[in-house]
């Protein structure tokens, strides 16, 4: 097994890390790669930020005030009547 991950593997792990706990060994190998690779530091940091943006987008979003059209309501009532 190679000690260092490739940048390609690191890109995937940057996201996977946000979805599940990684093993200690994987974390150490990632840490070493990040120390040595500026490109991966940039990508890794941006993926983490993106996740925060998505979270902030959904958590601040209000349920839209939506109305069914009268036609849609009539259609639903008709469908219920057929049942």
């Amino acid at each position, binding site marked *: 097994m190679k000690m260092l991950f*490739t*940048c*390609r*593997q690191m*890109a*995937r792990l940057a*996201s*996977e890390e*946000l*979805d*599940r706990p990684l093993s200690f060994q994987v974390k150490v190998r990632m840490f070493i790669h990040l120390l040595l690779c*500026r*490109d*991966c530091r*940039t*990508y890794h940091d*941006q*993926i983490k*930020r*993106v*996740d*925060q*943006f*998505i*979270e*902030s*987008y*959904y*958590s601040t*979003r209000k*349920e*839209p*005030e*939506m*109305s*069914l059209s009268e036609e*849609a*309501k009539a*259609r*639903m*009532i008709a*469908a*219920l*009547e057929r*049942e």
Partner: protein
Amino acid sequence: MEDFAKTWVQEYGDALFGYSYSRVNDRTVAEDLVQDTFISALKGYKNFKHESSVKSWLISILKHKIIDHYRSKARNVIDRIEESDHIDHLFNEKGRWKNSPQEWNDTPEEALQHKEFQKVLEKCVSKLPETQRQVFSFKDIDHLSGEDICKALNISPSNMWILTHRARHSLRSCLSKNWFGGAR
């Protein structure tokens, strides 16, 4: 038909529609899901124990309808996921970056304070494929765990990681282009 079912449409139709639309982002699909919810509710009304309000009961039925809707969609998407990764082209044969990832000019904290950034973010999120968006809506609106999202969509954890990575990667590119690196 029982008359009370008719009053459900008038009383709860809009609320259910808002709930549904915010999760599926499509008027027709959202309406169909609400209609299916009313029909299932009518059929199952005799089992309704009145332990919760009618509205919460209807919403819980709608939740299942939304999950079923996405489950069938996710199946199709997963069937089409190829093993080769969507980011392969960014790396050379040694697995190193062909071009350095573009640095971001503003800090994300600065960006979030801009109203225009919120618009760019919304536009970028809306461009994501439906199933990818749904994973994040389960995660960040409904607060489902990864395990529950996989169960709901009937996909494996590795399928889910592929979907979340695709979504994060696409959003990163979209934000880089339309905000952090690009002209605005």
